[in-house]
């Protein structure tokens, strides 16, 4: 009897443990542990285009059927739609009202007015997107991207992204540091707003933690970071050397300068002439007014928001990513 009971217990225990065998094997062999693989192409937005170029150059089996290859400069007649990817070794000029699936160009691309690219567009030189055009997916360039009035975009990356005349305002070497704000008082001093730390955390992190809305007075320097539970309002000509985060809307008046990042959990409005050195992130709508410059050629950064509206004359160094819709107004 005892042997039978022991047998019963052993059989029961075996059946109880058996389903856990895969888990125990994994526990000791550790085959699945590790970070979830994320494709680099998510961040490097020109990857798709360069994979296509490599396939074309090496005549590999991955060359998509129907791919169009042009060795010389190519002028695409207005109104033509091409559903196959294009590999252009020379300059590509689209006459206007064209629809392309994807374009890789070793030189410059001039996308005519009211044209569309549905998947991706990359040029090793300059990409000029004329007024009214729309580039879905990825748009990148080795030198710069110029977006015309009324253009739509999703993901753009280039050493310089110039929006409808932004290039003209920033010719020449761009300064790598923020200039000193203009004095507002008669004695020529620039007032500094540097509140005493309210906690050890504020002291260590060199930040101002505001439980309500934060307002920085005009032409005032704040040599710290800012975290606000409500809105953030940086008034005209003020300067923050650190980063600014708001849990609600953020507004920068004209000629505001920020040395770090801008992060808003809601919308963000950047007035004309502002300069931001770090990333700009908004979970709502981001509006960037004319003359604003974000990042520098030596320190490119990223601008990301759910919806982005950009005015003429804006220059961004790095990437511009609208999760839903980007529009030049």
């Amino acid at each position: 009897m005892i042997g039978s009971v022991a047998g019963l217990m052993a059989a029961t225990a075996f059946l109880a443990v058996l389903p856990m065998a895969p888990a125990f094997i994994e526990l000791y062999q550790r085959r699945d542990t590790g970070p979830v693989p994320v494709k680099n192409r998510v961040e490097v937005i020109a990857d798709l285009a360069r994979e296509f170029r490599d396939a074309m150059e090496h005549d590999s089996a991955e060359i998509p059927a129907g791919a169009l290859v042009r060795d010389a400069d190519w002028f695409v007649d207005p109104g033509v739609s091409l559903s196959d990817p294009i590999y252009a070794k020379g300059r590509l000029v689209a006459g206007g009202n064209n629809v392309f699936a994807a374009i890789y160009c070793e030189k410059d691309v001039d996308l005519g007015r009211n044209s569309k690219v549905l998947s991706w567009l990359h040029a090793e030189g300059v990409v000029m997107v004329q007024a009214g055009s729309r580039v879905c997916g990825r748009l990148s360039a080795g030198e710069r991207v110029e977006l015309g009035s009324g253009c739509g975009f999703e993901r753009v990356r280039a050493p310089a992204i110039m929006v409808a005349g932004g290039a003209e305002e920033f010719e020449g070497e761009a300064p790598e540091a923020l200039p000193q704000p203009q004095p507002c008082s008669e004695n020529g001093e620039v007032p500094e707003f540097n509140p005493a730390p309210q906690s050890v955390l504020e002291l260590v992190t060199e930040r101002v933690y505001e439980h309500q809305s934060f307002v920085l007075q005009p032409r005032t320097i704040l040599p710290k970071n800012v975290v606000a539970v409500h809105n953030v309002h940086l008034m005209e000509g003020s300067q923050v050397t650190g980063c600014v985060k708001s849990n609600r809307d953020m507004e920068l008046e004209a000629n505001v300068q920020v040395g770090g990042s801008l992060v808003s959990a809601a919308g963000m409005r950047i007035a004309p002439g502002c300069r931001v050195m770090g990333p700009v992130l908004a979970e709502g709508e981001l509006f960037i007014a004319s003359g604003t410059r974000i990042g520098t050629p030596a320190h490119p950064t990223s601008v990301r928001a759910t919806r982005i509206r950009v005015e003429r004359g804006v220059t961004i160094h790095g990437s511009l990513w609208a999760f839903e819709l980007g529009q030049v107004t």
Partner: protein
Amino acid sequence: MISAKKDKFQAIGAVRNAPWTDDYNLSHRAFCRIWLSPAEIVLGLAVMAGGTAAWIKAIPHVASLWAGMLSFWLDRIWPGTAVSVINRTVAGHWQIPVPYFKVEAGPVDGWTWFAIALGSVVLFALSYKIPTDTHLPYIYLLRAFALIQWSALAYVKLAQRSLPQDATEYCTSMLLFGMIFTGLIPAILGFTFYIVDVSIWKKIALTVITVAHLTLFIPLQYLAHACILRVSLLFLPILYFALGPLIEVILFIAFYSWGMSWSSQHAGRWSTPTNFRRGGRPSPQDVVEASRRYETAGARSR
């Protein structure tokens, strides 16, 4: 707004589905979602309903199988113990056949009570010897078991009578529970596993394996309970809470975890909406149509 975005994605998806494009340009896996085609939903529901119906149809045979398994072991443990199949009424009118066998429960007082009380106290004390930094969950588990056992001991001592439950009734009821729980497996997997991007054959396989394993395990589990209750009925609460339905749920989770580790049928493209990853290259008309729909969707979303 959502509809407009969906239209836009479906429109450009027709173009991005081509071999020279990436899958849908999602930025991060956190933004990914499960896309099930109507065919996948219908197939999953069919398997779910079919599995449940098959189990209902098989219940009398399962009851006979369990009775045979119990007879095999009981002949060796307590020769002469008869096993029969009786009908139990569930929800007022459903007659479910379930094996029945007599279990003589052990005493709950006298030396048995003291021995079990002493054992549970020792168990509780041992929990203080376990290192808290590496084995904290085991400590709480042991103390919880000791507390459950103490509740049974206190009830018997304070009420001056045995536990209200009967060992025979307990085993029969738990076998009935096991019968119902196993029958729910297709439905539970239908809502939790059939929505995962694995092939339908893997979904059916996991369902069959889980049901088959529980079918073999449950009669042995409650016969083992009967053996322990033969020592003393005082073990009934701890058996129910620690080694009863909890074990069956753990087994289900173990199988489910195994299934969830199986590779996706569209490995590497799991973020791609199902509607986009199927089909061939887009035609020029597709491109123009996608462009037009994209414009419309964009205007609406604005």
